[in-house]
């Protein structure tokens, strides 16, 4: 019965939005990956989570390196709101010796990263999100059916080298979601280093 009413509610909700918006909503399934502290982290483990900030990053990309401090700030700002920042390294460790688990651990220690830094060794999670750059951020939010939906995708901000001048796209999107608003700018372009998927021929963009 509960399910039926939820479905009905969704139906009415759907009729008030454009059909396209509903069908292009991308769901993210739960995933489990190993963090640099050797613990397995999964979305399910965060019982009270309203949303997650998922950032695909890596060890050696110069653009990604510029954001460590900003990610720490975002992590601290939102965790009390039930929005957790998780960083994922999905670089092909077969190709890049700089992206090994050991060097991920070194990075966390050296840069005093506060948030979990997970290794996506099979690149499956990155593929699920459709990540193609480091850094690239996603905000996923729980919908009424309890599914994780991508509500923001793109760059963290628009000024990697001059943070004080930046438009903080990611932060704005999270703020809007926290206030139960619709994200006004749900997609921005990401720039940085390409994530190449093992066994796939890269398309030039």
């Amino acid at each position: 019965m509960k399910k039926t009413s939820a479905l009905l509610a969704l139906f009415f909700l759907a009729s008030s939005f454009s059909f396209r918006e509903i069908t292009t909503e991308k769901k993210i399934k739960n995933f489990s990956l190993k963090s640099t502290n050797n613990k397995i982290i999964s979305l399910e483990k965060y019982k009270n989570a309203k949303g997650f900030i998922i950032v695909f990053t890596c060890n050696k990309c110069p653009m990604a390196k510029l954001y460590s401090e900003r990610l720490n700030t975002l992590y601290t700002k939102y965790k009390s709101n039930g929005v957790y920042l998780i960083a994922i390294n999905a670089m092909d460790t077969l190709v890049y010796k700089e992206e090994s688990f050991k060097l991920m651990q070194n990075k966390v220690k050296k840069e005093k990263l506060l948030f979990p830094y997970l290794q996506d060794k099979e690149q499956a999670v990155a593929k699920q999100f459709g990540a193609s750059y480091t850094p690239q951020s996603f905000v996923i939010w729980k919908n009424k059916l309890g599914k994780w939906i991508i509500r923001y995708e793109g760059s963290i901000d628009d000024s990697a080298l001059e943070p004080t001048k930046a438009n903080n796209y990611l932060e704005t999107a999270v703020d809007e979601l926290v206030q139960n608003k619709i994200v006004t700018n749900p997609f921005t372009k990401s720039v940085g280093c390409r994530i190449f998927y093992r066994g796939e021929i890269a398309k030039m963009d």
Partner: protein
Amino acid sequence: MKKTINLLLFFTFLLLANTGFSQYNVLNIPEAYYGVSGSTGKTFTLNIDDNVKQFRTGQATVTGAINIDPATTNTFWGPTLIFNKDDVVHMNVTNNLNESTTIHWHGMHLPAIMDGGPHQIIPAGTLWQPYWTIKNQAATLWYHPHLHTTTQAHVTKGIGGFIIVKDPTEAALPLPRTYGTDDIPLAISSRRFLSTTNAMAAQVIDNYGDYSMINGTMNPQVTLPKQVVRLRILNAEIQRGLNIGFSDNRTFYVIGNDGGLLNAPVAVTRLAVQTGERYEILVNLSSDVVGAETLFLKAYNTTAEIQLLTGTGTNTFGWPGLEGNSTTPTGNNGPINGGLLNNTTYNLMNIKIAAATTTVTPITTIPTTLVNQTYWTTADVTNTRTINIGGGNGGSAFTLDGALYSTTMTPKTINLNAVEKWTIVNNNIFGHTFHLHDVFFKIISRSGGNIGTTVRSFEQGWKDSVWLPIGGTVTFIAKFDDYADSTWPYMYHCHALTHEDEGMMGQFTVNGTLATNENVAHTAFKVYPNPVANRLYINLENLDNEIYYITITTLEGRTAMMLPKPEWQNGIDVSSLATGTYLLKLTDSKTKSVTTKKFIKI
């Protein structure tokens, strides 16, 4: 609000700092890199790095650069390599990009296996160690990526640098040669930036940049002493030709081009420089006023040579970059051939005049003669070829002899020491710059097209690239000497990088004595010590075997080191490898068979 404050600050700055404020950026002059001398020659360590650079306000631009680790922090372009004739140079090139690339030594006469063309792929994370003896004479060369289909993207990122070769003949001449003071390298290029991300666009439609830059500096100013100054000009554009001159139309002097010095300086007021070409010029600043900032180096692309010669305003002869421009900054959907700078005359660089040098003896006059080059003539020719430029209709790719390039295409074969006469025929819808690897050529004739039948005064001398207008035919002579290798080919191609990436390229091998096809399956050898910490030695069972190539890979197959024709007798330096088990794959020179041995790095 933030913007208002910024503007206020900006104007306050303008008012207060009227003496110190400059509307220009100081021209980046890449560091000169002389290498590290050792018992076997000079070693140059070059890291190909991803980076970011604040080119414009807003988002930083993702770039690429070459760095001498850990000494430099270049964010665009790389050091100027200084070589002396007869030096043995060892290059330690590490690819730190996330993808494969190559580094080609443009204009360098060297074995094909060291050339850095599309066949010498350096995978991500790999150390490539080519080496050779400098046989070039004093000249300005450059190095840049050359991986087929991604050359434009990698050059656009900023990966590349100059090479200056010095020799005793040049050193004896009264020419400016103090690097960075009276001898300045200028890699002239431009970029298109995508809206919102400021990413440098590198698709086929982005063959013309919207914003000019020299050595990676936008709106540059260089301070030059009040004397004769030498500028080494490289057209590092993706496709655009540059009709270069000074803003006061002063005469300047071409003293050298691609392959070395001319016999005598050639006086000009405009100089047409096409992609990949280099010209060394002298400009006399002796009569200029110290402190003046009124002189500009400019691209007179509204009055490029084609229009001067034809008197028309249309791009009838396919001069790249003379197509109409777009009037608004372009995003990634900008019109094809629509660079903001197209068909405009624009400033390349402001020149600020400083006092004449005191520590360096100033050159004050232009020499009347330079060197005494001996060029090949028709009497020397042992073989002739014709190459026809085609394609391009309806937006299709341009071709050479009707074919698109593939690394596996059958190469032309040229006999070692052959003196060949090549005729390049451009009955095509666009102009092209034909570039030859391995050796320099002497242009002996032109016909058709707008340039006429005279070889232009400034394209005398040794060339590796030559401009072909629509309807133009060029004949040149080259000797394919010193280096034979029937396996690895050299390239010839159009140096408009968009054309090259789309397949306007061919390959040739230079063949010495007939290759033997002995059926020896394997080359017997041992490696020691094993495990190894620093140097790995090879013990060949049969000393008649020669090693053609060694690659060292991890067990998973990641290439760690590539050593073409290694100098294995003194051992291989493996100290940079991470600990682990590796495979050493040895290719035999005669049979090209590959034998593999395992070793452990501790």
